[in-house]
């Protein structure tokens, strides 16, 4: 009986260790999101008092030169709107929101014009920002 108890004690350490590592692994898999090269090349506007979240999808990237990428694929404004309309289907109020991330030095007027063109097509828009504490 005593021997059995000792053998069980021997097994405890590696299994507990693996459990903790697996929990950490699941945590990073669940909380992580894959970010594309173009999405990290822009420096988004900084905010400090908004709720943080993962990089949302679908994501329209506007780089410093004004080039557009919809989920990493180079696109034009018309094509991006058409893609969103296709996803939204015939529903009168599409629930899918397009998230727009622009370089913080991008001219505000051009940025607002792009955002408004998307909204005019009936697609709700959210501006993606970077939490200032995570700027590094």
């Amino acid at each position, binding site marked *: 009986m005593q021997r059995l108890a000792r053998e069980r004690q021997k097994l405890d350490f*590696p299994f507990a*260790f*693996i459990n903790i*590592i*697996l929990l*950490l*692994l699941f945590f*990073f*898999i669940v*909380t*992580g*999101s894959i970010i594309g090269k173009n999405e990290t090349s822009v420096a*988004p*506007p*900084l*905010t*400090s*008092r*908004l*709720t*943080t*979240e*993962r*990089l*949302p999808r679908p994501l329209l990237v506007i780089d410093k030169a004004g080039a557009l990428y919809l989920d990493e694929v180079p696109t034009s404004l018309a094509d991006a709107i058409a893609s969103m309309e296709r996803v939204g289907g015939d529903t009168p109020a599409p629930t899918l929101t397009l*998230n727009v991330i*622009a*370089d*913080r*030095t*991008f*001219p*505000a*007027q051009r*940025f*607002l*014009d792009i*955002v*408004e063109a998307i*909204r005019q097509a009936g697609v*709700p*828009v*959210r*501006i*993606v*920002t*970077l*939490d200032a*504490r*995570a*700027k590094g």
Partner: protein
Amino acid sequence: MTFMLIPLVDVIFLLLTFFMLSSNLAPYSALMLGSYQRETGASAQPAKTGADEAQADVILTVSAGEVRANGINLPLKDFLDEAKRLKDDGAERVVVFVRPSATAQDIVSVLEALKRTAFASVTVRTRQG
């Protein structure tokens, strides 16, 4: 066939290291944009524009790094306190004009402060010159 624990731990460690190095902890936020209208010279709904301006409690003009609130120029970093003061004074409707010199950061800073202070209506407009 025996259960090989050490190779399993090695693989799990490699996966864990990969995810730890390649991930950030949710550094992004999102901001909804209120209504927006573009003003181009004499066109673009002059009557409605005038009506909106007349009904606005606060008129803001955003340019590079600063905001003009009811005639007073402020650096953007001080705008949150001013927005709170305007809200405490009973302001509810805000019209924001965006100058060509303003950047995406400038307009986002203003919208974030307005969101924090929970104004009832925020309209964004671009103005030439």
